[in-house]
């Protein structure tokens, strides 16, 4: 390591990530990072983080129809203008809503604006809810399910109706798991479904399905907590989570099989 290499400080690495270095310095840091894989990995993390933050917030830098009201109703002369400014804003939105609703054009947009918030809150807890459902029901000896596999047709028709979705119980026999049955349970505050499977040794796994308020599609996500493994994803209007006390590789196989058999 040369002296020159020793002159790279952490501040340099931040400036490198933030694009504050001149070309010469930037190249020097780049070279230095090649010889310092640990720092290089951290810098890559910071770069990815910055890109994710920019992607998440850049779209907010937009004017809004109500911006004029923000200014016109806040008068410097009245320090206590806040209550009535907010009232004015609410009144303005209400007017927009009423006139829009009358014309039948704003209703959808207002609804679609509120949905994503609910959605994001709901998504957060999907793997968590799946783990809880597994822990509560998989260990249950007498009543692990409400409707057993002997009434599979009734089970999928009933749960599918509650989810407003053409539910099928995936056939996992090729992977050594057969259907135990299922139950109705709340997911994201709405009617959701849980399907339970078990293998010849009595090892169980659960598949949770919940309404996803907006159409979406995500990649597969894997989450690990203790011995419990969960795969989850969103496809169309449904969020899915598969939980079991099996290896990650095995659970992935199972999740992929479920994904194939579930209709989006």
């Amino acid at each position: 390591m040369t002296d020159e290499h020793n002159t790279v400080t952490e501040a340099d690495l931040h400036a490198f990530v933030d694009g504050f270095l001149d070309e010469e310095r930037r190249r020097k840091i780049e070279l230095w990072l090649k010889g310092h894989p640990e720092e290089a990995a951290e810098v890559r993390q910071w770069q990815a983080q910055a890109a994710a933050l920019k992607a998440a917030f850049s779209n907010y830098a937009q004017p809004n129809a109500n911006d004029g009201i923000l200014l016109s109703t806040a008068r410097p002369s009245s320090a206590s203008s806040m209550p009535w400014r907010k009232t004015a804003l609410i009144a303005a939105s209400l007017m927009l809503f009423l006139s829009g609703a009358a014309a039948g054009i704003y209703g959808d947009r207002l609804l679609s604006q509120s949905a994503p918030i609910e959605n994001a809150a709901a998504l957060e807890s999907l793997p968590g809810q799946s783990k809880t459902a597994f822990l509560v029901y998989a260990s249950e000896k007498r009543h692990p399910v409400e409707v057993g596999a002997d009434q599979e047709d009734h089970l999928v028709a009933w749960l599918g109706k509650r989810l407003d979705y053409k539910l099928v119980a995936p056939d996992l026999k090729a992977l050594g798991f057969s259907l135990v049955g299922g139950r109705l349970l709340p997911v994201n505050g709405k009617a959701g479904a849980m399907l339970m499977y078990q293998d010849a040794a009595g090892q169980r796994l659960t598949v949770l399905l919940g309404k996803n308020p907006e159409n979406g599609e995500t990649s597969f996500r894997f989450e690990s907590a203790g011995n419990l493994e969960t795969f989850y994803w969103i496809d169309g209007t449904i969020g899915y989570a598969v939980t079991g006390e099996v290896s990650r590789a095995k659970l992935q196989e199972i999740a992929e099989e479920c994904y194939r058999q579930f209709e989006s």
Partner: protein
Amino acid sequence: MPHAPDQDSCAKGAVPPSADTFENQILSLVPSLRRYSRSLAKSDSDGEDLLQDCVEKVLVRRDQWRGINLRAWAFTIMTNLYRDRHRRFSQHPSVELDDTLGLTAEDTSGDPLEKTRLQQALNALSPDHRSVLMLIVIEGYGYQDVADMLAIPIGTVMSRLSRARRQMAAQLAENNIVTLRRPK
């Protein structure tokens, strides 16, 4: 006292900006103030609230503006408001009903699961660390600019930036999540 008015008022020389000019300047800053407020907030509605309070305060305090860099001045006010609100809300946690609300689909191209994770990691940052991170990464301010805006030494800016980045990285890694491509 050095006089370095913003571009708009420059043409008018030493004449103080009229009410209309000032308000129009603020209006043109609202989009970037909205982005900054949202990057500090826990939800869209929280972000709009903070934005409204900020615009209100900027207008009320317009006499205190020294005619230098209105944008930076407004951002400083926003940062202080955010810190005050955070302190107030953490003393009355019941107010934080929307704590779990995440990013909305303003950016519909992104993966909603990933956005939720990002929002959670951000919510775990202290206000001081979060505001420094956002001013630099999202708003593009230099380290010295941030030091001036927040009236802190540049060394403090660097240590907050460093801490924010490391905490975010650790938090995002902690969840032990592996993203896989979907099977065909």
